[in-house]
């Protein structure tokens, strides 16, 4: 279609068509002017995403409301499962296997580990499964699709905050006093969440076309649980394997979280911390790019 490309060239010359930014829909000088074409974007339109922040919050609230509506215990379920798991771990690993915890009651030890672990695993699974249940929205209405995985952060973060509240009560009960290290807890949890979201975005964009992702994710998550120091301490890992073990960034954030909360934790080496932060940034970046590049096709294949 030579006439079409001619038209586009003309617009570019007039300064009306978008010059530099590639994208399926970009704003030129006139903010109300929109160009829809087949060009692929690599990075999301953050300004547009900001305009849809209301939708992110409403969808996040919807997820929380819907999950606990028509339940008797309501939001109790949010922390009930973490308490049950910690209790189970205490029995199996603390009592039967008698794993070392550096003098911390095993229940608290595993609960703190689960705090970071659950943030990662829920962040990952919630965001990676956010697309298919909303297929009606995706195939009928336009909005930046990133809204969907981002909105799942609402329930993931709420769960974590409630769990932190329970932890505070628990520490008072056990008489464990936090140190200055506690100030680093938000940082550790933030890195955890970013890793979860980054992988969640990659899996979410693949899950639109390949439903296999939905089946594979829980399997991978449960495998990773045993490769992370949740039920046991990093010190329990043989020293000659520890460097290899720490290539799993989740190992670093779980142990780091424990270090920040409990005075007796073991701080992973500096290289592992730097590696984990770089890993998190890279995971998020790759996640966003993969998601954005696949986004235009979502409505056609979902």
């Amino acid at each position: 279609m030579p006439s079409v490309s001619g038209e586009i060239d003309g617009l570019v010359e007039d300064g009306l068509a978008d010059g530099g930014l590639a994208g399926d829909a970009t704003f030129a000088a006139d903010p109300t002017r929109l160009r829809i074409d087949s060009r692929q974007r690599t990075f999301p339109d953050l300004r547009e995403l900001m305009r849809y922040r209301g939708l992110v919050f409403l969808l996040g609230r919807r997820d929380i409301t819907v999950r606990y509506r028509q339940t008797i215990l309501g939001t109790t379920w949010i922390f009930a499962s973490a308490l049950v798991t910690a209790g189970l771990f205490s029995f199996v690993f603390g009592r039967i296997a008698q794993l070392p915890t550096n003098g911390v009651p095993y229940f608290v030890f595993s609960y703190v580990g689960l705090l970071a672990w659950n943030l990662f695993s829920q962040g990952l699974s919630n965001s990676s499964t956010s697309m298919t249940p909303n297929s009606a929205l995706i195939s009928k209405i336009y909005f930046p699709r990133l809204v969907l995985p981002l909105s799942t952060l609402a329930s993931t973060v709420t769960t974590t905050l409630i769990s932190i509240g329970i932890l505070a009560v628990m520490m008072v009960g056990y008489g464990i006093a936090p140190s200055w290290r506690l100030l680093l807890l938000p940082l550790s949890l933030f890195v955890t969440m970013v890793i979860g979201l980054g992988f969640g975005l990659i899996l979410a964009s693949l899950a639109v076309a390949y439903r296999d992702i939905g089946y594979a994710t829980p399997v991978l998550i449960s495998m990773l649980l045993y490769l992370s120091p949740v039920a046991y301490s990093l010190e329990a890992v043989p020293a000659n394997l520890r460097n290899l073990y720490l290539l799993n960034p989740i190992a670093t954030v779980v142990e780091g979280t424990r270090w920040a909360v409990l005075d007796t934790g073991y701080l992973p080496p500096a290289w592992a911390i730097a590696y984990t932060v770089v890993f998190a940034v890279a995971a998020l970046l790759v996640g966003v790019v993969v998601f954005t590049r696949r986004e235009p096709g979502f409505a056609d294949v979902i």
Partner: protein
Amino acid sequence: MTPGTVVEARGLSKVYELGLSGRREPLLKILERRVRHPVRGRAGPRKTLLALDDVSFDVQRGEAVGVIGRNGAGKSTLLKILSRITPPSDGYIDLVGSVGSLLEVGTGFHPELTGLENVYLNGAVLGMPPAEVTRRLDEIVAFSEVDRYLDTPVKRYSSGMRVRLAFSVAAHLDPDILIVDEVLSVGDAGFQRKCMTKMQSVASDEGRTVLYVSHNLVTLENLCERSLLLDSGRLVFDGPTGDTIARYSRLFPAGLGTDVKGVFDLAGADRSGSGFQHLFQRISLRPDGGEPTDVVRMGQRLHVDLDVEGFADVPTGSHLVLAIASSSDQPVIVLTSGMVALEAAGPRRPRETVAVVTDPLPLTPGEYTVNVAVVGVRGRSLDHVREAAAFSVEPADVLGTGYRYEATNHGLVAVPWTWEIRPGVDPDEAGPGADGDDVDEARAPVGRGPVASAP
């Protein structure tokens, strides 16, 4: 882009890869192929469908433009591209102003949330910030007529209530360009009228631009001065709605016209259905049993000769269905072998003709289409040709009063009738027992015959 133009579409095309949606090649198959053909390990060229083919048009500010076309003509694809749900494969659209699209009423409604929560959520989904929803909440709720149930979960709503609430949110979006797909076909008649009025005022009074897709040609004619006609993905006509509708009705039927008017070849026609492909070979329309023609006079009997192949092999329990539909795709007359048994008059042959003879047709003048299908035991169509044939009905004096049904808007069917004015009962004359008598009369057994028929 000239001033005043708010939509400029140039060379829009959309290619779909068939068999892609939902059904991907399993991983094992891919691996197997890679192992067997390590060099040319990629799948062969996929079958593709050109849903839109080089479509260009402009829309001016304040215009209401209709989009019509047969099923699969590319209307929905065009709307999806306009609403940014799916990108075009080629070409572009420039839009000036905010865009709101309404491809389905109530998308994003969550059954567990209350009406009010859904109003906010639906507003946000459609691009209305929560603050804006709050500002217009009273208007939205008043329009929806469900104000008493705002705190009830939507799952307890009737479908009518759901639709009313959803349309109200959408109707208060106020985008500069509104893209609407067939939403007025929902709700009860009263609410539909209300929606129509709202849509009309959006275009004419508020000066917004509306792009409207519909099968309901009457609505379209009321709402849009100009319409686009799509056929097989191409823009075949762009002009006043009346002219576009005229062109549209000439697109029918799917059955390929032959040299003889009123005879349609179905062997190569587009069809759906499975198993017994291409049962239907040809259909001929012969008013009053005469020569084939596609013009039927009111009150004529319709003879339909349906040539079929392999009809004797159709599993027992299947039904032949023949439906006559109006130009707005509404079935008006449906004949099935489930209602009237279809018997073979002699020994069965591979090629046969089903000869249908109707009573005088009560259809009013207009364009009609004939759909034919064979439906299997479990409701699956074995062969189905939509719009296999088309015919027009010409006016005639069917009432015997000299009136010839030349005006439009006189319904879809014409039935001869009688009526008269009778003296009423003066309320003063009616005694106290009169009401009781009426009740007895009403309760009388049906066998006594209709009360009003006595002269």
